[in-house]
Each structure stands twice: as structure tokens, then as C-alpha cells.
């Protein structure tokens, strides 16, 4: 495993990092036994209304990411919440906004495994929550089959694997991670299929970021694994959040030009 300087905002031509090393380093900052750092708890309109715990820490540094600055400076943001405290806050938000769905967002939820598993144990037993969306970049589910097996025991969980690219080169350029890690989210998909987990795949196929050829390559790779996964692909669009605009500028993409481009699907 490579070591080095903890990555902050992505800069073009920076040395690619090993996302497993970044995951471990991030866990040292945002996990404390069964506790994890969160910045807020409230509900939003996506997924038809969902109570959300906004947690801290990711092992990618995508230049189009919308998450708040806690992604880049996890030391400076958030407070620690035990799994039970996070669960209570999520359920409280669900009750307040009259929704029955829940998730952890703005981070990589599969970091701090003990925290996530404890939280899911409580969610699974609570009739007030009917569905838990587990949004992941697939890195840890790709390297650890047992983690996926453990998650498969929770009946309310639906996993959403978010792919960032269709080729190893594009993956490294957009996330900052080494090219070799490109294959891990695809391994995660295989593991999810193996353990019969409810899941679908999303991909940042915004044509301003991804060429038609790359998009076709991504779908080809998905079809090699499973046709249902490919047909059920959710395609994502990049939105001009404040943080996205700054990250793009720092990376060297002019956000004004980018967001003024017409969105023309292939």
C-alpha cells in the first residue's frame, strides 16, 4: 500500500493516491470505535423524501464532487456520534419530515464499518424506516467480499454503487486515485450479485465530463458482468453546487464555461 501526503482538493497532474490508504487515513480522523463524524441530520426530497445523516470522510477526491468541505478537511468539520445517536437523529429527522426512508450521504458510508453495521442493525428493527439507501463508491465492497456478505443480512438496505468513469485513465483523472483501483467498484458489483443484495449502479455519465465512447465502454463492462445491472443504470448529471464550482476551478476546469455548455445527450 502506498503512503504519502493526505490528499485534499484534486489538482491536475497530482500524484495518484491509493484509495485504500486514503480510506484508512480518513478512518483515523472520522471514526472512533463505534462513533463517526457527522455534520448534520435532516431530510431532503430525493428518493421521494429521505432522512439523511451527513457524515464526514471519503477516499476519492472527485473534482466534480458536491460534498461540503469536510471531504477535503475532515479534521476541521463534524462531531462524533455513536451509531445509536446517529440512528436516533436519522429517525427524528424522518419523523419530522414525515418520511420512511433513510441514508448516510456526503461521504463514503462504508468507512467506519463497525459504526455502519451497528446503525443498520437498529434501522432493520425499526418499523418507522422502510428502506435504507447505502450510497457507495464501491472501493471497500470491491476489496472485501465479507463486508458485502455482512450487509446482505440487512433486509431494508438497497445499495447504490456510484461509478465515476468507464476507463482506468478517466477514473484516475477524475477521482485522483490510482488507475488500478478502477476495477474495484466492478468487483463490488460482482460481490453484490453473489450475495443477492438489492442494488443498482449509478454513473457520472454527464456528457460534459464523459465522452460517448467512454460511456459505451462503461456499459460494455457492465454488460460483461450482468445485463440487468447495465439496463438498470442510473445516469448522473453534474450540478453547479458552490463546492463543485470551487473544486473545478482548483482542478483547472473553468466552471463558467463548463456549466454554460449545453447538455446534449449522445
Amino acid at each position, binding site marked *: 500500500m502506498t503512503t504519502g501526503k493526505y490528499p485534499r482538493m484534486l489538482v491536475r497532474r497530482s500524484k495518484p493516491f491509493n484509495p485504500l490508504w486514503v480510506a484508512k487515513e480518513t478512518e483515523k480522523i472520522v471514526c472512533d470505535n463505534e462513533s463517526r463524524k457527522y455534520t448534520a441530520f435532516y431530510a431532503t426530497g430525493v*428518493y421521494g423524501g429521505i432522512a439523511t445523516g451527513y457524515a464526514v470522510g471519503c477516499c476519492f477526491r472527485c473534482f466534480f464532487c458536491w460534498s461540503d468541505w469536510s471531504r477535503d478537511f475532515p479534521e476541521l468539520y463534524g462531531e462524533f456520534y455513536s451509531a445509536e445517536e446517529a440512528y436516533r437523529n436519522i429517525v427524528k429527522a424522518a419523523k419530522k419530515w414525515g418520511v420512511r426512508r433513510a441514508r448516510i450521504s456526503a461521504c463514503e458510508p462504508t468507512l467506519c464499518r463497525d459504526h455502519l453495521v451497528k446503525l443498520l442493525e437498529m434501522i432493520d428493527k425499526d418499523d418507522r424506516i422502510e428502506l435504507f439507501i447505502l450510497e457507495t463508491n464501491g472501493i471497500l465492497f470491491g476489496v472485501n467480499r465479507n463486508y458485502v456478505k455482512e450487509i446482505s443480512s440487512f433486509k431494508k438496505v438497497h445499495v447504490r454503487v456510484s461509478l465515476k468513469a468507464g476507463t482506468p485513465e478517466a477514473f484516475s483523472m477524475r477521482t485522483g486515485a490510482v488507475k488500478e483501483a478502477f476495477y474495484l467498484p466492478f468487483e463490488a458489483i460482482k460481490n453484490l450479485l453473489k450475495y443477492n443484495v438489492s442494488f443498482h449502479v449509478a454513473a457520472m455519465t454527464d456528457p460534459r465530463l464523459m465522452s460517448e465512447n467512454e460511456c459505451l465502454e462503461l456499459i460494455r463492462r457492465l454488460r460483461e458482468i450482468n445485463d440487468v445491472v*447495465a439496463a438498470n443504470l442510473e445516469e448522473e448529471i453534474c450540478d453547479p453546487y458552490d463546492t463543485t464550482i470551487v473544486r473545478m476551478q482548483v482542478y483547472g476546469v473553468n466552471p463558467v464555461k463548463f456549466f454554460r455548455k449545453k447538455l446534449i445527450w449522445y
Partner: protein
Amino acid sequence: MVLKIFKIAEIEGEDFNLNDMIYEDNYEIFNEIKELLKYPPRIVISKLYIDDKWRRAVLKAARTYLSSDRPITR
């Protein structure tokens, strides 16, 4: 029916529930999966696929969907 869900998901797959996206005259064909209509279309497809009773039908519909005149999913 499953092919219809793939087509509905193309319009909106995550943020609306399937029962909000089907018309009354279409409702009957979804009778068999009444308990899943409360979920968004992509989640319905995923849940059907992990159900042995539906697995083959979902795979067949996915292949039909992918071979339609829409070469990539969008």
C-alpha cells in the same frame, strides 16, 4: 410488465415511486407486484431481480431493453 418498468425508470428512476408514475388504465398489469409499487422504479427492478420468482423475467426484459433502439441507456 418488467420492460415497462425499465422504460419508466428511463424517465425517472429514483426520486418518484412507481405508483406515482403509472396511469390508472395501466395499473392492472402491476397487480402482481402491488407491495413493491411504493418504491422508485430502479429499486423495484433490483428487488424483483433478487426474487427467484421474477429473476428470469427481469433478465429477459433487460436484454430486450438493451437491444432496443436505445444503444446506451440514455
